[in-house]
């Protein structure tokens, strides 16, 4: 349940590679050696690990079209665990190397195999693998900072304190915790001696006014084809994020999610480890199972004892009967121009009050746009600076009819070719919708202020909020071939 070594590297698509941090855990290596016996493969020095890792991730020799070691069709990486084929005197296969990447940052570690090495045990039998994944994900979050994007200075400063962070979370190769993202904002006091044990995931105690903030956010994804033979797809998932500033060592808080009377049950519920107990009926509904009409539909109670920092209390998915915005997109090639016709219809159950709503119409594998002669029934049309994208700003509201249209012609007579894309060729094209609707959810799920219970002396202030936003919301041109093969398949 330990890792033998840890590497943090940065690169730009395989170029400008540098090792930013490494750590080897000698005692774990010692155990690995006695566990593996004759099949032991030592961890090579950093530079060769780096090279092997990039090859395995398909990033080495980016200037070469085909490299057998990297591109052999037989070699299907059983990711997330990579094999590094070590050459030279310590020849052998280093397995299972876990690697996760975000932008230019790649983190990798080598978990110990605490099972007989031959034949190779399944990944699923090694707890060190999920532990390694958790450690890497935790370190990644820590290094990327709150913004989720690596900025060089922030990264460098966080890398600089990594040794002391590791002393806390993984001193001897056995991951104990993931690093905290900065000190908690609230004032904390040291633990008084008492009979109640302090949770290891709580760094101190809150002192001051009790505030509980519960934010419910739903995300909707969709693929609409405008084609009878092909079923449109959409799905909704929600997350409940909490920030609880409550006094006490192990305060009890309960958040309850409720659905409207005929709402479809919440499915695939996942909870934060601080949730103390769960009713089995909360977990039963699943998106991959036959929907059972008699399924439990709330209220969903989540009793927990909160950590100091904000956390995701739970997540769920939901099957809603209709997509919030139904679109149709038609393109016709006419001589040197495209005739465009778009209709977007806002479903009546959706609150007609957006924080923003934009439709993007990108065009690939064509020259830049020349004359753009399109009319919209509502909102505002812009052509991007690069002249390969139409941005249709729909503002905060759809018109009363809840339907907007766009008609017109675009000629592609610009001086330079626009971007290319291997999927969107010929008439394969899409509209991507970006929108956010405050104070509503598609599933109808909500957290009532009064349903949040805090068992502590002072009466807490309770803030709840909800919102709906889109992600990967595509409307494909119905006159072209959409890139989903067939069948009632999920996204």
């Amino acid at each position, binding site marked *: *349940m330990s890792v033998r070594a840890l590497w943090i590297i940065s690169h730009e698509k395989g170029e400008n590679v540098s*090792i930013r941090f*490494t750590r*080897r855990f*000698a005692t774990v*290596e*010692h*155990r690995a050696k006695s*566990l593996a016996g004759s099949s032991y493969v030592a961890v090579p*020095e950093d530079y060769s690990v780096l090279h092997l890792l990039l090859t395995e991730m398909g990033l080495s020799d980016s200037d070469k*079209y*085909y490299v*057998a070691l990297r*591109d*052999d*069709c037989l070699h*299907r990486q*059983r990711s*997330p665990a990579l094999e590094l084929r070590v050459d030279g005197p310590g020849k052998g296969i280093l397995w299972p190397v876990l690697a996760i990447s975000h932008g230019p940052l790649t983190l990798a570690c080598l978990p110990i195999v*605490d*099972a*007989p090495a031959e034949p190779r045990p*399944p*990944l*699923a039998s090694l707890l060190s693998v*999920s*532990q390694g*994944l958790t450690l890497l*994900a935790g370190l990644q979050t820590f290094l990327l900072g709150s913004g989720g994007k690596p900025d060089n200075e922030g990264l460098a400063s966080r890398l600089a304190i990594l040794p002391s962070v590791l*002393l806390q979370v993984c*001193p001897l190769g056995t*991951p*104990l915790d993931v690093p905290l993202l900065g000190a908690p904002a609230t004032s904390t006091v*040291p633990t008084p001696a*008492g009979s109640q*044990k*302090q*949770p*290891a*995931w*709580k760094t101190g105690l809150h002192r001051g006014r009790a505030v509980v903030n519960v934010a419910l956010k739903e995300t909707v994804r969709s693929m609409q084809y405008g084609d009878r033979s092909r079923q449109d797809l959409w*799905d909704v998932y929600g997350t409940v994020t909490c920030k609880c500033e409550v006094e006490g060592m192990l305060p009890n808080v309960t958040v309850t999610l409720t659905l409207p009377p005929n709402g479809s049950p919440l499915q*695939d*519920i996942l909870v934060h*480890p601080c949730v103390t107990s*769960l*009713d*089995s009926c909360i*977990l039963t509904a*699943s998106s991959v*199972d036959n929907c059972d009409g008699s399924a439990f539909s709330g209220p969903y109670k989540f009793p927990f004892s909160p950590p100091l920092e904000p956390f995701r209390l*739970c*997540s769920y998915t939901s099957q809603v009967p209709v997509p919030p915005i139904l679109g149709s997109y038609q393109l016709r090639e006419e001589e040197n121009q495209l005739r465009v016709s778009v209709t977007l219809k806002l479903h009546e159950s959706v609150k007609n009050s957006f924080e923003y709503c934009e439709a993007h119409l990108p065009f690939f*594998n064509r020259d830049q746009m020349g004359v753009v002669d399109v009319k919209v029934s509502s909102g505002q049309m812009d052509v991007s600076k690069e002249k390969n994208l139409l941005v249709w700003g729909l503002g905060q509201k759809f018109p009363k009819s809840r339907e907007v249209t766009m008609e017109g012609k675009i000629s592609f007579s610009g001086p330079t070719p626009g971007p290319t894309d291997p*999927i969107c060729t010929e008439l394969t094209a899409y509209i991507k919708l970006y929108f956010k609707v405050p104070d509503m959810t598609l599933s109808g799920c909500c957290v009532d202020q009064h349903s949040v219970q805090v068992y502590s002396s002072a009466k807490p202030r309770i803030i709840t909020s909800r919102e709906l936003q889109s992600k990967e919301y595509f409307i494909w041109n119905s006159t072209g071939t959409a890139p989903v*093969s*067939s*069948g009632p*398949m999920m*996204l």
Partner: protein
Amino acid sequence: MEENWAERISAFSHSPSRFLSGTTAEAFLAELLRELRDDRASYCVKVLLLSPLCEHPTLLCPSDSVGEETALELMSVLDQCPPKFVQFRCHLLLALTAVLVCTSCVSLRSRAFQDFLDLLLQMAQDTGDLQGDGALRSLRATACDCLRELEACSPGLLSQRLELLGGLRQRETSRLHQAYAGLHALVLRNAVYRLTQDAGAGAEHLKALLGGHTSVAWEAELDSGLMSDKDPSAILSYLVLGPMGTVPTLQTGPDCKELRSVLSSLLEESYLLTPLCQAALLHRLTEVVAMVPGVPPAVFRAQLLRLLGTSEVCLLHSTLLLKCAFTDSLFSAEDEAFILQRLVVLSQHPLLSAPEKLFYTDCLLHFPENRPIGCGGDGDESLPVLLTPRLASALAPTVFNDSATGLARFNLLSLVYLEEAEEGEGEESRGLAYLYQHLAALLRVVANGGNRQVVVTFFRAAFLFLSYFCHVERYCRSLTEELCELYLRHTHLAPHVINLADQVQDKLAESDWAVGFLRALQGVIAEAPPARLTLRDLSWHLKTLARVAEEGEIPQHSTVRFLSSVTAPSPSSPCAGGDWRLGNGLLGVCRRLLVHPSLDSLLIPLADVLQHLTRRYGDTDIRDHARLYYTLLTTLSREKLAGVLARGSAEGGRQVKKRSLSCIMAESEGLASALTIHQTEKSIFRLIEARSEPQGETQTDEVSDLNLNETFPAEANAALEEYRAQFDVPGFASEVTLNYQLTHLDGDSRFDQLFSIRLHFSLTDDHYEELGDVSVPRLLRGRPSPEVRLRLKPRRPYPTTLHASAVFTTQDGLSWFTVLPHVHVAFRQAFAPLPAPPGWGLGGRLGLFQGLWDEMSAEEQDDCATSLLCCQLKEVALTALVEKHFLPYLMSDLTDEEEFKVLFFLPPRSHVLLKIRPGDPVHFSVATDNWQLLRHLNSYLLTITSSQEHTGL
């Protein structure tokens, strides 16, 4: 200085071997320890200095004793460090742990280790530490971690402290209870394991262990048990290896109150641990419960719901492992169905990261079923029974997936639909149709110019598809067609296409898809109009055709037609440019055609193509090669041709994957290795001097055998004249013959049997005439060494060094060039016996000796010189010396002990005469007609006399 340390430590950590090549481990360690003791160094730097010891303790402490000393040093540093530098002290503990574990100090229970263990235990119990500072990890927690690591590396170490550790855990209310819990659980697990290995152990022992009442006798037993492990890896491994594995058990009967109470207390508080520690704790306790059948798995039940609903990958994973261990004694059939559904959901959950999803997908293929069918186990992927096509359809791959996800899903669904197809015999599977459509969608993305990653993904998916469904004719045919079309549009995919064909052929022996595919490729290439071919297309086509030509069952007429059409003289032909690479491509195909089984029917058109190349191609090298192939084709019999050419493809063949410029020549590499001379890396054999020559013996025979009817001039002068007259004949006595033996040097068994060895010698100075080559028919290891006679023709008879090399053939028919160790020719080797006229006996020789001596002693002679050397030699030693070294050159009788007369003749016409008079000291009077020989003679005499002194005295 601080900056410097940061750099040096980082250099060391990136490449210890490179760093240590500039210094020694010993010196570096000494430097580190000195700096650590230095009061002026800041504690930040000191923390840094500990990292080499933490990360590479075995490099810095190569032996146990160095480890022990280093540990003692570090302990004294710890002793002197002010308590406020908590971080540094923590790092010191880690470094000490690393050094002690990795050198064998722990397993040997060295003194430093005992001290350290006592210190750690003392620290772990010292609750008076920095209560206030929550942000800093306290020393106590690190001490617990070190103890846990020591226990992990040396299982059973703390078994007797179980009660103490349990108490510490229970009393602790700060966050540190987590560290105690981890330690307690591990020690418990190891102690129980130890009991399972003891045949007599039972409930009483367990109780005693938990209560800390172990008897002294038993403690000793435990201690000795620590060292006597047969297989140390057994206890280090996870003990529960799936439903088919066996777990060592401890029979206690149903009453294990104490253990149960410890377990439930640990489990109750598990909620207070971080997910990572919870998972580890559950894992350890799973092992403990599995080992003690007296405790029902139901102790975990209270935790299950919480665990099954978790969003944490490690917690769910430990639950899966729990299921693997206890199957239906803890999980009902409904639970099983639920967990499986969860895994499907998690494998595609939008909120999870890609590696997590992939991990869950992998778990699906190794799902711990309650009642597994068969014992697939062992890393094989198998589908859980409950994973229906409907359920799995949630994991259908799409073109939007990243490569790894797409392939993992493709693989999973292939397994699902393969099973479905097997069950629903004859029925057309919609799932399979979907998979094929997905493959076709990927292919379209590739055709539309998808990037490298998409290309690789597509070919991997294609291989997967073929490996599962190569029996479904319809799709395979269709895939062949689509691939051919794709290839024609994007010829640069040739390496991928060839790789796919290779792998399918290698791995799917039952399928003939690869051959059919290659045949189809040949067809589309042959039909492509040559006029429109670009140079690039053409070279890829040639690559592909070369691969096609490796298939004996594919007729090659269209390939040859294609070759003749592209080589036909035409201004638009890409061959008109005479590009060398292209020429190589053409020759590559020709070469494979030369060994193709249907060569007979290709003979004339192929000869035409080669002749065209020979005459018209714009590159000389290519013309030469083409001419060679043409000659081979037209003059060698088929068998011979195959023999010459086949070797290369068998050796290098398709394994030559590197595509650098120099490897292009790998195309004709086989031929090259058969026809060119390779060079050995090291010397293979050498010449060693054989024992003294037989010539001398005949001479002495003659001398001893006094010839009665000898005729010789009575006068010294006349003798001289007669003797000198012989030299008028050119080449008279101008050679010395040196005898050598050719012997193997140690090494490569490839060179055990060598044939047709031709030795070549070159001179390093002008004292000798050039030497001719020497042939040796064979050299076989383990057989008597062949003799080699070197006939040296001196211009000046000085010592010299010869450079020797050889060309030979090995058993496999390859020719080699090798360099031999230099051959040193010593001064004495230039000696020849006196070439006296035949018929002269002892008298004549003595006369000649006297004549020469007189002449040389006369002062007016230009080049002549005399000299005297004295040395201490006993009489016996002197006789031995003469016998050993001078016998072939002795003029006087050996029995004549008054004076030995020795004459060395050195071709072409130098003489050295010795008169050796015994006595104290022995006098060596020397006369020579070539004064320049004196210095060589002196050193020669000194050598032999001094060696005789040693042996003689």
